[in-house]
């Protein structure tokens, strides 16, 4: 399932990364500690977090996740959005908390 399909089906707002929307999502990783994400998030996973700063964009790029899903209604700050646009990182905004958001994505991936 692609990033675009997940966003459209679940009604998440697409904030950046138009060219990355066709990436396939292979699983879900939830964490707000950036070094944990770099150490443990597999490539091509959707990363769910409340960290909307520029370092989160750098981590998403380096860890090569399929997309960042900002949960709990968090929006990226201006530097993150700019970096995400420059580097074509797909950033989605989801209104609900991490657990429910991850569960909803998981149900789509398992369907």
């Amino acid at each position, binding site marked *: 399932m692609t990033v675009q399909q997940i966003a459209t089906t679940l009604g998440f707002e697409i904030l950046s990364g138009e060219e990355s929307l066709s990436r396939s999502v292979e699983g879900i990783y939830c964490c707000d500690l*950036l*070094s*944990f994400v*770099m150490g443990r998030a597999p*490539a091509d996973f959707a990363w769910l977090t409340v960290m909307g*700063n*520029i*370092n989160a964009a750098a981590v998403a790029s380096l860890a*090569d996740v399929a997309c960042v899903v900002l949960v709990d209604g968090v929006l990226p700050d201006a530097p993150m959005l700019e970096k995400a646009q420059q*580097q074509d990182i797909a950033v989605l905004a989801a209104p609900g908390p991490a657990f429910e958001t991850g569960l909803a994505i998981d149900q789509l991936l398992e369907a």
Partner: protein
Amino acid sequence: MKLHFDVPGDDFTRAGEASGQVKQKMKQLGFPADVVRKVSIALYEGEINMVIHAGGGEVDVDIDPHCISLLLTDHGPGIEDVSLAMQDGWSTAPDHVRNLGFGAGMGLPNMKKYSDEMEIESTVGVGTTVRMKIFNP
């Protein structure tokens, strides 16, 4: 190919320039995605460490088809007990750094995890040098 970067101190918005540029260069050169990922993460953690703890430093990267060598040099306070600093979860990062999502005590362990060889030389009051190698099999 040799690349050199200056890492500014206390500027989290610019940390990641070296790793970002090295990642891009390695992708252009056709390195496998998993090797690029290992180099990028190991280097980014090193950059972040220099920003948090050392007031910045320097990064030298040597990209060879079979081995990527990373040399990180700083003139910060040094690491008192390297084996303690290598433990998962050990951190001396201040609160403002933790609020950004760093300071979980995973920086050096991640560098060790993603590099194939790693050496740390550190002298309190003088600075720290980290050498890492990532092989492209």
